[in-house]
């Protein structure tokens, strides 16, 4: 292990008594057979009373272990081996276990990432909230009354009736509210939230973030928020701690961090993120490499192998966290520590200047497709009522063109994608492929479909067979294209080069690769049949932020070099903006708005599009005070969609606010052209342009 430099807790503008929680020199190790892994190394941070501290980092940065170390809940074989955790002046690491248990839940509470597994499915939510009070010595009747208050406080509608419901009767967003209610039960002064909105959709995320902000203001609760999302940090946090390789590399007030970064990692990470307000004419400046494995950290500054400013000193000695500029900001970097500024990083133009651009004939066209997802579940006792997850969708993709498909989970975008490639069968409608428009679901259409359209999956860990080497996986695809056995080796090497991987890795198994590398292999497999169109189903959403830009750039250069058309499915609006030429927004099985990407992003016409954009957090603190449209409620079930306009139950300009607008409930709005050039399915389409 390296010599641990003594960290000087930076002179901050927050005075001592203001800090509710102060962590000093925290060190947590995991002892395993292979050796000791130091997951958290000399971490110091402070949470001020009634403020939100964001701890940001990628996978393996130690952010979650830090949170668990504070609560002394590090999973085996982890152990806190050094440092102090001062909560209101008491060192939590020195407390006895019974005292610590009394403190958890009553003074410090935790909100977990996955509301699905954080609630016990066999107990009612009311009981689970009350239980949090009962274990801290409240009698049953009082506990139930307080549980009801708490459920109302976190915004569960109709709480009196729902208090005796079970978790499965609630949507994901509502469950997360219940989890927060449980956390609030003991009236804690500190809430530790570990990725509280990562499992939720953007419009629901906006609701939960707004709730956390309200609780901070009303109840004066401090929040320690663990997240990987710079947008969430910018929207909600007062202070920020950036972690990398188990250490704090930069910290300070949020406005300072977002306006002037003092660590190259923070600076380059923010630059590498696509922005919703920037078009995709230039490549993203991706950070090379991948976040380090905590078991094999580079010497010196852990970021040096990926840093464009790295010097000899960075490779040998760990820089200490030192204050910068007297504003409470601090960074651990040798180069900027000498006063050098981080040189700006310009986005390189796309290689070859102007890209050929979308043109020519449509290679994939979807016409009026409806997919009944209930048909699979037919049983001995007859067919269930049809459930159309995709209900009459049409779109087309031309060569060299990217069509973005945006929507929240459950809107049917993945079902549509899987139907196009023949995994699901459509109940109605056709899919035509190739320049001749062959119907894909006829006997003669199967071959053209397979050779024209290929699929890139979301989860790079699940899309490769763990039992087969990369060569075998690629070989299977080449075999399907009809490449003779003898020519496959050369083709496989060429594919590896194409996606930016070393051809020497061909005989490795998937587990030897990082997430980004696996995604590259998945892309190579799709390319092996020389398709014309790739369906990319959330190809970057499972990747670390610094890797996303690499994959986005790869997809862009493949599109421009090979003239591929993409149907790019994502929930992240900024990624879609960056890549797409045209965009389609889906809500509950239907396209509600579609058109050229600039028109849709600059003047969205459908209230749902407006709400989606408004809910997406931007990595910019100056955008924090913008007028935001936060949708109420949840996505209705496609089993029983609302009559007329499907969005009317959540629409900010629909019958909810204008009861006289009966047309929304009576008549389904058609996709109609708007003055800005896109199509929108709304009776009052132009109205949102004013709001946005």
């Amino acid at each position: 292990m390296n010599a641990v430099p003594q960290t000087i807790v930076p002179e901050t503008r927050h005075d001592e008594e203001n800090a509710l929680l102060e962590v000093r020199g925290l060190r947590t190790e995991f002892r395993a057979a292979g050796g000791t892994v130091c997951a958290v190394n000399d971490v110091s941070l402070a949470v001020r009373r009634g403020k939100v501290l964001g701890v940001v980092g990628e996978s393996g940065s130690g952010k979650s272990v830090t949170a668990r170390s504070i609560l002394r809940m590090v999973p085996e074989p982890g152990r806190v081996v050094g440092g102090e955790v001062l909560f209101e002046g008491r060192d939590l690491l020195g407390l006895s276990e019974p005292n610590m248990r009394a403190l958890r839940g009553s003074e410090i509470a935790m909100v977990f990432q996955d509301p699905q597994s954080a609630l016990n499915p066999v107990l009612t939510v009311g009981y689970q909230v009350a239980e949090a009070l009962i274990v801290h010595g409240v009698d049953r009747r009082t506990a139930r009354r307080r549980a009801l208050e708490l459920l109302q406080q976190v915004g569960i509608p109709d709480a009196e009736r729902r208090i005796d419901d079970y978790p499965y009767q609630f949507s994901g967003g509502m469950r997360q509210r219940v989890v927060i209610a449980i956390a609030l039960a003991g009236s804690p002064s500190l809430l530790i939230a570990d990725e509280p909105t990562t499992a939720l959709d953007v419009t629901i995320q906006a609701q939960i973030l707004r709730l956390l902000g309200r609780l901070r203001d009303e109840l004066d609760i401090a929040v320690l928020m663990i997240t990987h999302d710079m947008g969430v940090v910018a929207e909600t946090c007062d202070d920020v701690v950036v972690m990398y390789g188990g250490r704090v590399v930069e910290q300070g007030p949020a406005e300072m961090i977002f306006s002037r970064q003092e660590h190259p990692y923070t600076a380059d990470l923010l630059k590498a993120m696509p922005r919703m307000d920037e078009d995709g004419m230039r490549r993203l400046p991706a950070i090379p490499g991948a976040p380090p494995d905590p078991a094999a950290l580079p010497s010196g500054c852990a970021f040096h192998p990926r840093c464009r400013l790295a010097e000899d000193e960075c490779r040998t000695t760990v820089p200490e966290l030192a204050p910068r500029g007297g504003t409470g900001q601090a960074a651990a970097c040798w180069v900027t520590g000498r006063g050098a500024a981080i040189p700006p990083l310009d986005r390189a133009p796309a290689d070859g200047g102007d890209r050929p651009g979308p043109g020519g004939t449509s290679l994939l066209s979807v016409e009026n497709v409806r997919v009944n997802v209930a048909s699979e579940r037919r049983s001995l006792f007859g067919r269930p009522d049809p459930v159309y997850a995709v209900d009459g969708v049409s779109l087309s993709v031309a060569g060299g063109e990217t069509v973005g498909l945006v929507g929240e989970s459950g809107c049917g975008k993945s079902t549509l994608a899987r139907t196009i490639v023949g995994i699901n069968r459509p109940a109605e409608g056709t899919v035509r492929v190739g320049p001749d428009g062959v119907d894909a679901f006829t006997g003669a259409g199967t071959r053209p479909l397979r050779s024209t359209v290929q699929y890139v999956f979301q989860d790079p860990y699940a899309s490769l067979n763990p039992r087969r080497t990369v060569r075998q996986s690629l070989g299977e695809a080449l075999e399907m294209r009809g490449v003779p056995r003898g020519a496959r080796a050369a083709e496989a090497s060429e594919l590896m080069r194409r996606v930016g991987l070393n051809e020497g890795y061909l005989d490795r198994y998937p587990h030897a690769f990082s997430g980004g590398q696996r995604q590259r292999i998945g892309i190579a497999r799709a390319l092996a049949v020389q398709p014309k169109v790739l369906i990319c189903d959330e190809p970057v959403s499972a990747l670390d932020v610094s890797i996303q830009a690499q994959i986005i750039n790869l997809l862009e250069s493949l599109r421009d070099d090979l003239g591929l058309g993409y149907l790019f499915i994502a929930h992240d609006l900024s990624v879609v903006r960056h890549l797409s030429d045209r965009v389609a927004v889906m809500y509950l099985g239907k396209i509600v708005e579609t058109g050229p990407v600039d028109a849709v992003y600059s003047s969205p016409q459908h209230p749902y599009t407006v709400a989606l954009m408004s809910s997406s957090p931007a990595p910019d603190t100056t955008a924090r005070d913008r007028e935001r449209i936060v949708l109420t409620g949840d996505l209705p079930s496609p089993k029983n969609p609302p009559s007329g306009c499907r969005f009317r139950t959540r629409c900010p300009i629909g019958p909810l606010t204008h009861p006289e607008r009966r047309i929304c409930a009576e008549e389904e709005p058609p996709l109609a052209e708007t003055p800005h050039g896109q199509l929108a399915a709304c009776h009052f389409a132009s109205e949102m342009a004013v709001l946005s």
Partner: protein
Amino acid sequence: MTTDTETTSGAARRESGGAVRRYLAALRTPRGAIGAGLLGLLVLLAVLAPVLFPGGYDDQGDNALAGASGAHWMGTDELGRDIVARTIFGLRTDLTLLLTAVPASAVIGTLMGLAGVISRWLGAGMQRLLDVILGFPGIVLGMSVVLVLGTGWSALFVSILVIGLPLFGRQARAGLQVEQEREYVLAARVLGVRRRTVLTRHVLPNIVDPIVVNAAVYMVVAVFIEAGLSIVGLGIQPPIPSLGAMLNTGARYLEVHPAYVMGPGLVLLLLTLAFTLLSNALNKAVLRR
């Protein structure tokens, strides 16, 4: 084009080879080594039985129920036959039975579990059939087989085979249902790979581990099925020795000649121990992946 700058984080990790290589790795753990060694020793004894005991298993002396002596280490049975010789020949019977019936059960059961690939109805029908088998206690099932086939080796073989079917059939179906939704299986389907190839290339290799572990566990159960049927007199018939039949007869002479049951009992114990250790080791090796 992008360059390869990502570090191969797991490069140092052990490559996971084929199924056989992983099972061999399991044998290198202490449990696996002891289990395999013990089983190897028992198999060797069984194979060498005719060499070790040229007199065979039914050489009747004049001394019935004799105690231990230089000629008969554990004495003789009620007909004056050497107990050690009969135990080893009994072990030979049992091992032949286990090492054929259990794999047969695993293969047929797995195929029944995978029948859903051919048609949904066939798959569902097979599961109901397995449910029916599961509905009968093992001993009742064994007795019905005996009713049809008569007592003897083939009845035991069929009993062990049939009783094991639900175990493997359900395991295979559960695995199939999980694997069918895996993205790499979908990727192969999108490429247009034929169903049969998807099954053998992507599904089977990923569901075989729990089936192999179950087979090792079921070996232990099968020893008890043989013993159980023999104890009620429906197993291997005299004069052929089997461990279960010897325990059955020996129990009658427990007071006068305790060594009678100890011979087959000890071997049964060792056999069970060997399979238990093996299945434990396999399970650990497979889960650690």
